[in-house]
């Protein structure tokens, strides 16, 4: 009993072939779009790789790029097949290749679905990479004299301005690290000497933040230093002040940015996957309909198209049998060769 049988007359077959040809070329466009999205994602990750300790995983954008290229190749090939399907002479040369090609298509669709799923799942690994990378980045903020790290200050400042965020989890992260380079500290000043002596590691810690944490929406000029000292500033209460600095941490800001990006890319990939599945199903019907043409001399006759020749459990059994036969077939051949060699030796 065939699975999902559909009757096809000549007109329907021609319409199916033409429709599939058009869909295949649209799908080549979709493949180019996937390739472009993968490239865009890769560039975005590279732009901020300083914030992720250069250890971020490029698996998702690389696989999207690969899938886009493969999709273009497979779909243009399928388009050519559909174009030739209307001409029995040309179709004859494609006939032996169609079954393995359909198997490859099914495999490609499964992999595309997995890649789309990965887009949604990348968020977890990105979170830990970002937390680690931002912490290290902030530690190197003051090393503007060290070659290899001298751009970290500029990178973090631009990041905090662009993403409207401050610190790793919040602005208090800046209180725990020394972000002012020793080169610009006046060691003859008593205040500086006291601060350094009072710290176990000899670091100069302040309850202040860099200027890039300032929020332009605040009605008063930005307060950057002595943030926890209410008496240092007129009419200031650090417990209730919300508009002075950016409240969000940069980890959350970057994570939400990348999550949104990945979610949209994942959604587009799923849509393209659905399209590809439709094309594969249509191609299968075309294949079986053309196979079912009983009389090759009479192209006008009706034929039947189906997805699978037998029902699913029977097809699975037949598949296992054929795999066993393959194994047995090798054994029989080997025995035959031995038997053939033995008389020769004898």
């Amino acid at each position, binding site marked *: 009993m065939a699975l999902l049988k559909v009757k096809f007359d000549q007109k329907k077959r021609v319409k199916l072939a033409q429709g599939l040809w058009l869909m295949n070329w649209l799908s080549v466009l979709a493949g180019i779009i996937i390739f472009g999205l993968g490239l865009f994602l890769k560039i975005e990750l590279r732009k901020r790789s300083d914030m992720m300790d250069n250890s971020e995983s490029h698996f998702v954008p690389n696989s999207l790029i690969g899938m886009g290229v493969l999709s273009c190749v497979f779909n243009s090939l399928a388009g050519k097949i559909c174009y030739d399907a209307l001409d029995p002479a040309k179709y004859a040369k494609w006939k032996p290749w169609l079954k393995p090609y359909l198997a490859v298509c099914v495999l490609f669709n499964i992999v595309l679905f997995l890649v789309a799923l990965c887009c949604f799942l990348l968020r977890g690994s990105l979170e830990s990479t970002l937390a680690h990378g931002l912490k290290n980045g902030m530690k190197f903020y003051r090393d503007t004299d060290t070659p290899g790290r001298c751009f970290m*200050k500029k990178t973090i400042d631009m990041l905090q301005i662009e993403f409207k965020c401050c610190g790793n989890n919040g602005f208090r992260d800046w209180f725990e690290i020394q972000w002012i*380079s020793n080169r*610009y500290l006046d060691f003859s000043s008593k205040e500086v000497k006291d601060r350094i002596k009072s710290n176990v590691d000899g670091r100069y810690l302040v309850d202040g933040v860099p*200027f890039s944490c300032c929020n*332009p929406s605040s009605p*008063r*000029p930005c307060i950057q230093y002595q943030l926890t000292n209410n008496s240092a500033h*007129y009419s200031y209460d650090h417990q209730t002040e919300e508009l002075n600095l950016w409240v969000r941490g940069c980890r959350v800001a970057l994570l939400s940015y990348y999550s949104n990006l990945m979610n949209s890319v994942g959604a587009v990939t799923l849509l393209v996957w659905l399209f590809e599945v439709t094309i594969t199903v249509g191609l299968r019907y075309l294949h079986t309909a053309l196979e079912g043409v009983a009389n090759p001399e009479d192209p006008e006759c009706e034929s039947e198209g189906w997805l699978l020749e037998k029902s699913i459990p029977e097809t699975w059994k037949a598949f296992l049998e054929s795999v066993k036969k393959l194994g047995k077939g090798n054994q029989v051949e080997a025995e035959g060769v031995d038997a053939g060699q033995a008389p020769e030796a004898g």
Partner: protein
Amino acid sequence: MAPVLPLALPLQPRIRLAQGLWLLSWLLALVGALTLLCSGHLLVQLWHLGTFLAPSCPVAALPQVALAASAVALGTGLVGSGASRASLDAAQYPPWRGVLGPLLVAGTAGGGGLLVLALGLALALPGTLDTGLEEGLGTALANYKDTEVPGRCQAKRLLDELQLRHHCCGRHGYKDWFGIQWVSSRYLDPNDQDVVDRIQSNVEGLYLIDGVPFSCCNPHSPRPCLQSQLSDPHAHPLFDPRQPNLNLWAQGCHEVLLGHLQGLSSTLGNMLAVTFLLQTLVLLGLRYLQTALEGLGGVIDGEGEAQGYLFPAGLKDMLKTAWLQGGVARRPAPEEAPPEDEPPKEGLPEA
């Protein structure tokens, strides 16, 4: 009545003209679309920077006129491509015959006029921009501290965002901030002696300091930003205000914005010039094609010698014929009126 600028157009040159015209028309349509996008972009940029331009400055006129002119150019290009394609096919040409004349007039008058106006505005813009920006930025700087005054409360945020995005400080330099009070009086401690001294020492009672807002800070600087006591060489270690440094943005916002907007409007002006050239060529080509085909009575593949011209006669002759035609049209009016009354009366009883 000699035709103006006649040109002999037998079949082969006519076909060549039509094909070349088709190509030129698509090129005109493309350039028109690009100019449309460019003027839209300029309009959006001017809208964003609206607070920093004096309201009396009619700067928005250029992108609006350019938008209209490029839309007309796009239309001319599409019409030209359709007409030149139709002129090669005998079956498709008749519907174009009646429409082409008025379309050419509309294209020349409307499109040409708008383009010339837009080009003129593009040349005149830089002067108005300069004064407009001067006034607008001055007002914005003065309103920086008025975060409590309705109507001006966004000035601080907008100016901070401008300085952060365009990498500039003050009007012509960071010292502009020393001359205005940018700290709101609400956040000044009346009991602080330093504050009282500063206010009293100023003629107008303003609280002036040698400091700048945080948005002037340059992230490329190797040291944390120094915003206050900028004129005092001993206030910060290793900092001498007389030495050039990366601490603050060096450029003033006036220069930066002027350069940015002038660049955009000069690009737009160049594109408008190219559009004008292409539109003239397309309209001329269409006119010659139209008159040549009229001479053949609308028969496309006629092998006869057709002549294309710009105008059927010189300007004086045309005005004379138009005047005579107008006089002839006015005389038979009373005779025409009674027959016009009868058909409606016949129509009513039937209905």
